């Protein structure tokens, strides 16, 4: 199979690169965050890419995961590994609750409703001070390093955990896409009425995608909290910092494909980091301004994402290669 070589190459590279980077350094942090965002965009892709429902509120589930594991650790000393599953369950539940009123909405309406839902969660996290610490944020408490306690001296284990998470989420995405559920989701995307007529329970299928996506997103929130060590409501429930960025990564890479979110994350996150490093000392706002300009340019150049450019390039190459 020709299509297998690229993923294998990627995994081998991703396993080797953390060994080469300075374990206390800056770049291993960038790599870890990039892998995490790739996994988040992949989780978003289950709803955004397969069901074609553009969610702008995935920060809601992400924040639930970050807060659940951290609060469980702070108040009861429960290991974040278990907290991760508790967060995943709550994230899935939240996705279920919000999916009920929004599922029938299409296009812009769905995007707007999920945007508002993310904001609801942000406001609640800011106000519910006794649980979340309010706007002041939460610090993940220090525990002696051990794998079971999900505490490490260096960033290298975090990079591998993020890589494992990306692989798991991508495998789930592929399994859904290739399986019967993927056909149903695609049928709904192309023509919801026709899908209903041929006997697909569109409500149940969309609900399933939403819950899986929300639960995965929440579990990734726990991983993020363990890497970041400190976070506040405006970061983990943020529109710009999470919801829009995650959707953007998937869209820039190529919505609905397994490679898209990974391409997008490895473009966007390092780009942002490099620009912050180069430009933020010169003037506030300059790096984000340049980022916005690049975003506009990419969307005008490839409205369907990098993956189409890549595919057409590959097609051209193979045509030339053929005798």
């Amino acid at each position: 199979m020709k299509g297998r070589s690229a993923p294998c190459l990627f995994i081998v590279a991703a396993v080797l690169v953390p060994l080469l980077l300075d374990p206390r350094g800056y770049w291993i942090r960038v790599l870890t965050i990039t892998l995490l965002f790739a996994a988040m965009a992949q989780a978003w892709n289950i709803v955004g890419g397969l069901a074609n429902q553009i969610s702008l509120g995935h920060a809601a589930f992400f924040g639930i995961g970050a807060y659940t594991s951290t609060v469980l650790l702070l108040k009861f000393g429960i290991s974040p590994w278990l907290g991760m599953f508790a967060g995943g369950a709550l994230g899935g539940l939240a996705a279920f609750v919000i999916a009920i009123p929004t599922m029938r909405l299409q296009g812009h309406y769905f995007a707007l409703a999920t945007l508002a839902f993310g904001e609801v969660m942000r406001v609640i996290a800011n106000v519910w001070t006794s649980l979340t610490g309010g706007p002041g944020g939460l610090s993940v408490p220090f525990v002696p390093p051990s794998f079971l306690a999900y505490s490490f001296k260096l960033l290298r284990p975090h990079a591998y955990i993020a890589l494992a998470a990306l692989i798991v989420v991508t495998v789930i995405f592929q399994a859904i896409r290739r399986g019967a559920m993927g056909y149903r989701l695609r049928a709904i995307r192309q023509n919801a009425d026709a899908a209903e007529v041929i006997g697909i329970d569109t409500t149940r299928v969309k609900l399933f995608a939403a819950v899986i996506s929300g639960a995965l997103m929440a579990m990734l929130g726990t991983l993020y909290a363990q890497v970041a060590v400190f976070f506040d409501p405006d970061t983990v429930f943020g529109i710009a910092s999470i919801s829009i960025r995650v959707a953007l990564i998937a869209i820039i890479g190529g919505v609905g494909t397994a490679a898209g979110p990974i391409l997008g994350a490895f473009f966007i996150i390092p780009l942002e980091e490099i620009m912050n490093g180069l430009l933020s000392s010169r003037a506030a706002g300059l790096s984000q301004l340049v980022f916005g300009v690049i975003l506009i340019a990419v969307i005008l150049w490839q409205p369907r994402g990098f993956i189409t450019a890549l595919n057409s390039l590959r097609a051209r190459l193979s045509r030339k290669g053929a005798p």
Partner: protein
Amino acid sequence: MSLLQAIIDGLLIGGVYAVISIGLTLVYGVMGIVNFAQAEFLTIGMFVAWFAWAFLGLDPVIAAPLSFAVAFAIGWVVQGQLIARVLNAPSVAQIFLTVGILIVIENGSLLLFGSQFRSVTTAYQTVSLSLGPLFISVPYLIAFSMSLVCGVALWWFMRASWFGRAMRATAQNPAAARLMGIDAGLMYRMAFALGVGLTAFGGAVILPYVTVFPGVGGQFVVLMFTVVVLGGLGSVAGAVVGGLAVGVIQSLSALFFPIQLQNLVLFIVFILVLAVRPQGLVGASR
């Protein structure tokens, strides 16, 4: 009595919400594009009015037409050069193009003007008229009246002028409008420029009671969407009703809930309206 007072305040604030949101609904109604950058034009309008006040000594209310003109010009270029290219692209590309424009405007103004908060001082800023036991804040009243004038002018423009009718024709059926000799591209530019101009106008008239800084638009994004969704996305008359409703909801919820929860009530109303009546409270189903 405080209930009545809250309703009056809400209606006055809501009138301005109506005008800043008409721009958003106009752009959607004519082109079918949800402009996430719309609130950034509110920021632009506020900055123009602030500089007009600081350097020319103009009252923000007098400077409002200037804000309109600057935003109109920027909108004309943005529509012609950027948005026109994605009119037939997938809706994700449209959404994220306007998000890109949002990022550029917000950070451009941060770069140009810095992050400090700026406000104006006017003679009428703290004055209020007393009507028996009720008070009517003069800056609210002035902003409301200016919005009313602006809304009526738009209504006349859309209804009576050739451009307005051509724009509505384009919204209804672009192909048929083209056959009638209407330049659809020109109408789109006109609608977009007019829409962002109105939002900037609203920004100028609220300057006496809202401080301006590069992120101020972000505080209005969900509010503006709530207004247009309440009224029905694309409906100008709906935006007026939605604006007044949002103003009243905001000021009533301030009576019963702590100030931090004010927006929460709004967001929940927003989600409920979307779930129950996505075509808006006044809109007919289309």
